[in-house]
């Protein structure tokens, strides 16, 4: 599959990445290689194989509905690049 510069632009918007022009060039090639490898995988007949979503054969890992104390707010907010006394702050996101 041919990867165009527009496709790279679209993917970087979705991933919130700002790519310099020269890297975009490199990306088209790399992404094309990745998809080419997918084409190799696609030559295998998997019609009889269940799609796998988990590596380990474990099921039904659940917990009881019992409240545990929440985390100290100060500790949580310490991780934020921007904050005030009680909340995380981000650039304007709502009207």
């Amino acid at each position: 599959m041919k990867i165009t510069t527009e496709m790279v632009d679209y993917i970087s918007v979705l991933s919130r990445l700002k790519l310099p022009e020269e890297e975009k060039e490199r990306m088209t090639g790399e992404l094309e290689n990745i998809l080419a490898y997918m084409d190799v995988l696609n030559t295998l007949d998997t019609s009889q194989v269940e799609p796998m979503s988990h590596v380990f054969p474990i099921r039904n890992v659940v917990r009881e509905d019992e409240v545990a104390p929440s985390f100290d707010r100060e500790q949580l907010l310490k991780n934020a690049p921007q904050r005030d006394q009680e909340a995380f702050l981000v650039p304007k996101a709502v009207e």
Partner: protein
Amino acid sequence: MTWETVIGLETHVELATRTKIFCSCSTAFGGAPNTHCCPVCTGMPGTLPVVNRKVVEFAAQAGLALNCEITRYNKFDRKNYFYPDLPKAYQISQLYLPIARNGHVPIVTEAGEKEIRIHELHMEEDAGKLVHDPWIDQTRCDYNRCGVPLIEIVTEPDFRTADEVIAYLEKLKSTLEYLGVSDCKMQEGSLRCDVNLSVRPLGSETFGTRTEMKNLNSFKAISRAIKYEARRQIELLEEGKRVIQETRRWDDNKDATFSMRSKENAQDYRYFPEPDIPPLELSEEYLTSLRERQPEMAEARRERYQREYGLPAYDAGQITAQKALVDFFEETVALGAPPKEAANWMLGDMMRRLKDEEMEPKDMKLTPANLAALIRMIAQGRINRNTASRVFRAVFPDNADVETYVREHGLEQVNDAGAVEAAVAKVLEANPQTVSEYRAGKQKVLGFLVGQVMKQLKGKADPKAVNAALRAALQ
């Protein structure tokens, strides 16, 4: 041209669990910002979500009650998007294997009975709350609601009118309340509804271009928004213009829908299987035990109320339409009130008060014990019906004790035959004209005399006793 409106609904319901879907933080409403949070629900790197057992149970129960097929092998998926209401930059939801599918809900409107098909029901997590602070021109994030469990119920595009939509939502709300899986409070956002709407020429098999309406906070808003949006689309088409597929926001004050930024419309969620949560397998035994625990729902209860208590179909329907009324009714009856009496008070005086106060039954302070006491006082002949209505109105707002209220206001009925006879004698003496009219055959004036005697006794007598005493004295 005659147009047909086609509507499908996506309803998000917050589940009434104690804790969040993937961590043990409290789901309690309110709370200072970011105090019901931990590294899991604030999306800190390296944390692992663990599914709340109760969420699966509630979702499966809701699926069963909506006549769905339950998915035995469940998985979660990641829905990726960058928006600060979700600190992980993805929402854990179910895309490929939702817990329930292919259900149906019977509804009744004035146009008759109809079946609404349920496309699917899936589990997911709620997002946080964003508030823009114009002072610093930044957005503040409160993640208390982040990770609160939701089920999203998606219907097929089976609705044709706003009435059908409301009938379905009322049915859905009642069903979920019966199950106890949600408190379904629209004002607090625990039941939210997005409406997908398109129009097409009547008889057409293909669908028109649809819009999705958000921010519908009441049944009234939903009904008005549907009527507005259908008219808007029809007008566009009749002018030869076209409908644009987009998300529109309902503005309750302006009574209109408005296009939301197109950026939000162009979404590419790049779903993929959630690697942090192992699959959930629901056994046949588990589903059987859930089926057995399914409570008696509205229809079954309505029939039983008619059969066991002799309630008229309409009354039984009114009470069973809301779980809060059912609980109130059953408790009042359990406390000894005759079922018909309890139903009459609830559907008469109580509904009137609720309507006047614009209150929901579940928010009312009045208790079944207090209503049962009021009904008992009437049965014992201690207050008459008129007085009882006055007492009801007085105690309704704060659930003041009826016994105390009656005593403190001296409202107990005069059952002393001597006092009634004395009042009768006094009234007859003061109204010789009316007495002779009565004796001349003008029966109607008796009502006036009864009123006069009641007035003498300050309304505290049993009208039947007054009536009898008057007739005897006039013989």
